[in-house]
């Protein structure tokens, strides 16, 4: 391959191709035919060109939300297929299909139709398995997308509403998942529903009434499967699609955030236009997600309900786990000690069930949803932010995020305490007790460690900017000292490391007002100043040009050598290097035995001819 001297670009025209001017004059460029017909009636031309010209920035982490969006589409497609054969009924039937081990066994119509989809409907199993895998992918990608948005500070003004919508979507998604996997009425999911009935019963005062309303009478009853079906295919999808639409419209209104870098500012968005680049990339990505989900569904069995058997209240299998996204709630139930059941006025108050099953999930989501408002109060920052934070540049936020994730993960692993015990041959009691302690010990530790790591990374950035990158080239000076050449960062790279803002905590307003009249600061103000101090404590500020200039004057061995060289009047040295010398004696503190001690008598480094 021999590069031609002038890059023409992959889209360069051949001699016979029509130019843009030709096209503009030709019939193709006029919106005629169907497009013209449509525009005559809807004036759709303007929004079309606006949307197609919209610029989206490129980054792998922006694809996490796309994965969620595309798996939602896959869920809608495959879910619609499944409704054609699934029978949402608890009516009892005797199985007589082609799966031999279940022949003659009484089961609900819901279970039989699910087995039929798996064995007798052509291509039914692949649709079912794509649906289930896509559901897992949907919830995973929502969660990881949420992490990305949190750690980069993308929830800041003006995107707080979209963050709240996102947390609601996440909550709806896991409940959509729960109602979905409960539909087949198999032994595993039926046991989950049985537990759900127990959760509802634990509500103080009205628990048993609520349980009877939800289940249409005693558990399991005939009503729950059709009701779950309506919730799963109508109610929750409608809410999810509605909120998702709002979510994506707001993304378009706000324009996408971007990572900091050369040329990227808070006032622009740098990337590629939707037409054609993102149409191809995002459209192609949809097909990739669909393809990978389908391959998983082809090769990895998921939720083999025919092995679990139909639901019956008395048998149970060891290792009963919910789908992963319900794991944290199940783990909370497993960790919550039984002594939280109290007796008040002769009535049991089962906080050991009520809190972990019905309070923890909404509480965690409320805290998550409220975070942007808490943070903006603490930082006093009311400006719009379109440039993302590098997580290290917001150490406290990143630490809090890791704290929340570690809390979540401990609950999640607690839901597998029996599996961990079996696989690792440990005592389940010891695991549970350890996790109970860990739930309170690990999150603060995670906060502290994360914050320290962030600050170390910030200091490393600092060092890189001030002293440049180690080039790996070691140079020996004339008198035998060794230095490693440090190359200053190119301006592009340096900008990414210094672009963030200096941070200062919110200070208490002066206690004497403009007219010299003393006022007491309110408790609210003092609290805010305190929390803000905590938030911004130990901040590592970005390098300023002054600091960089000072570093060059202080630590540059090159300048020392050159200065010494001139009076000697030697020929220019044969060895040329750019950058600075670091790590040598010049940089050692005065107290160091290896430091260079210039005491007048020392002639300094000289080069031998």
């Amino acid at each position: 391959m021999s590069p031609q001297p002038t890059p023409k670009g992959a889209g360069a025209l051949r001699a016979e191709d029509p130019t843009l001017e030709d096209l503009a004059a030709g019939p193709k460029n006029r919106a005629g035919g169907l497009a013209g017909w449509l525009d005559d009636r809807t004036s759709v031309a303007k929004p079309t060109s606006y949307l197609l010209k919209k610029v989206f920035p490129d980054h792998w982490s922006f694809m996490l939300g796309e994965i969620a969006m595309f798996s939602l589409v896959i869920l809608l497609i495959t879910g619609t297929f499944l409704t054609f054969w699934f029978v949402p009924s608890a009516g009892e039937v005797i199985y007589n299909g082609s799966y031999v081990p279940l022949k003659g066994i009484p089961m609900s119509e819901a279970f039989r139709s699910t087995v039929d989809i798996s064995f007798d409907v052509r291509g039914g199993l692949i649709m079912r398995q794509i649906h289930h895998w896509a559901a897992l992918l949907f919830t995973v990608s929502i969660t990881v997308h949420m992490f990305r948005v949190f750690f980069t500070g993308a929830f800041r003004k003006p995107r707080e509403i979209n963050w709240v919508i996102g947390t609601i979507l996440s909550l709806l998604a896991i409940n959509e998942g729960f109602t979905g996997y409960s539909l087949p009425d198999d032994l595993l999911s039926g046991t989950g529903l049985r537990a759900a009935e127990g959760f509802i019963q634990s509500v103080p005062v009205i628990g048993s009434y609520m349980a009877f309303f939800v289940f249409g009478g005693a558990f399991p009853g005939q009503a729950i499967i059709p009701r779950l079906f309506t919730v799963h295919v109508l109610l929750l999808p409608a809410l999810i699609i509605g909120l998702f639409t709002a979510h994506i419209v707001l993304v378009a209104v706000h324009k996408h955030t971007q990572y900091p870098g050369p040329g990227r500012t808070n006032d622009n968005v740098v990337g590629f236009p939707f037409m054609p680049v993102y149409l191809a990339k995002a459209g192609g990505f949809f097909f990739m997600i669909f393809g990978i989900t389908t391959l998983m569904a082809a090769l990895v069995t998921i939720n083999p309900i025919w092995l679990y058997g139909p639901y019956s209240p008395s048998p149970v299998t060891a290792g009963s786990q919910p789908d992963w996204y319900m794991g944290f709630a199940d783990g909370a139930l497993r960790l919550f000690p039984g002594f939280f059941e109290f007796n008040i006025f002769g009535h049991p108050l089962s906080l050991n069930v009520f809190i972990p099953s019905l309070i923890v999930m909404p509480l965690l989501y409320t805290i998550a949803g409220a975070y942007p408002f808490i943070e903006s109060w603490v930082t006093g920052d009311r400006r719009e932010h379109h440039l993302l934070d590098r997580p290290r540049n917001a150490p406290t936020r990143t630490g809090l995020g890791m704290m929340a994730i570690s809390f979540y993960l401990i609950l999640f692993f607690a839901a597998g305490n029996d599996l961990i015990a079996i696989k690792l041959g440990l005592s389940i009691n010891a695991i549970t007790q350890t996790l109970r302690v860990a739930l309170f010990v690990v999150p603060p530790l995670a906060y502290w460690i994360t914050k320290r790591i962030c600050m170390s990374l910030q200091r490393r950035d600092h060092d890189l900017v001030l002293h440049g990158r180690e080039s790996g080239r070691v140079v020996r000076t004339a008198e035998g000292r060794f230095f490693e050449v440090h190359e200053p960062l190119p301006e592009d790279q340096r900008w990414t490391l210094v672009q963030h803002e200096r941070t200062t905590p919110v200070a208490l307003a002066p206690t004497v007002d403009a007219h010299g009249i003393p006022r007491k600061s309110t408790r609210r103000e003092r609290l805010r100043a305190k929390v803000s101090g905590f938030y911004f404590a130990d901040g590592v500020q970005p390098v300023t040009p002054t600091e960089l200039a000072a570093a060059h004057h202080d630590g540059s061995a090159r300048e020392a050598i050159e200065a010494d060289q001139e009076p000697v009047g030697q020929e220019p040295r044969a060895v040329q290097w750019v950058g600075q010398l670091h790590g040598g004696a010049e940089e050692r503190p005065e107290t160091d035995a290896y430091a260079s001690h210039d005491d007048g008598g020392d002639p300094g480094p000289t080069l031998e001819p």
Partner: protein
Amino acid sequence: MSEHGTGPGENANDPGAAARLEQNPGQGQVAEVAGGMPERFTNPGLPPHVPRSADLDEAAAHRAERQVATLFGISMVATVIFLVAYFAIDQQTYQFVPGIGQANLSNIVLGTSLGVSLLCIGIGAIHWAKTLMPDIEVAEDRHLQRSSDQARQDAVATITAGGNASQLGRRPLIKYTLGGALGLFALPLLVQLTGSLGPLPHADLAQTFWRRGMRLMRDPEMTPIKLSDVTLGSVFHVMPEGIDKSPDVLEEKAKAAVILISLPEAAIKVPKERDWGVGGVVAYSKICTHVGCPVGLYEHRTHHLLCPCHQSTFDVANDAAVIFGPAHRPLPQLKITVDSEGYLIAAAPFLQPVGPSYWERS
């Protein structure tokens, strides 16, 4: 790209904050400090475009074109394979697949061909975008979300004028009756929903199918159990006699499930437990007092019953008291005895509600 424009820190509507982050002068004014050094570095602007090989070399562009076309071609072939396999492969064919084992051939071929066909479209389109479509980044300007003051005033004026035009403020009769009507109209919907969703529980949660004299039947065979069949250390899953004839089989089973355990009489620590059993054979409700899972895992050596859902552990030797886990109450015991033919029968129904706690349970 725009290097100027209003700095983001100039929101005029925020004079109250006691302090704030320093403004970002990189996008507007460059603050000078002593010595002529700017306070911050300046944004160097977009880096130069690095041409791809397809930009420089016609042959590379052709190669990329062929690669994309090949991927789309593979997709078409895979779709054809799907269509053929759909009709050609029998639903019930099982085939050994390395790494998977016996697997449904139809599912594997249909899924793999569909997956490959989708995946190749996706990879092809992305490869096309990355190699041949323009890769020069463009910048679009942003604007503050806040509407102009004029637009805000217009909106307020419109709403106020509309409100005035409706005369809602001047005609309190309409205001209050409208409020009342709107406040009430949701009630019928709520009442219908809550009133018709389900019956009231009454005593349903407190009673089970067990009656005095009912035989203990093996679950699911529904055969009676002779005391002599219950060897030391054995465990039986038990249902009451006649429960399969009940109109609400599953609902009754969900409460009546019992586990029958035979342990050395000397190991039983509680006199009541010994009295309610027969020679060390005791029956306990199998419905966990935590959230109602069947307590199915029994360990002979320690006499512990473990719930597989949330690992509540009950000590059968000590009247099924909770020794670990999230449950609070012991499992209720079913008093049993032996009838004239030597079969185990219930000596009394459960004397307390089984299963998870609820408010009315005393």
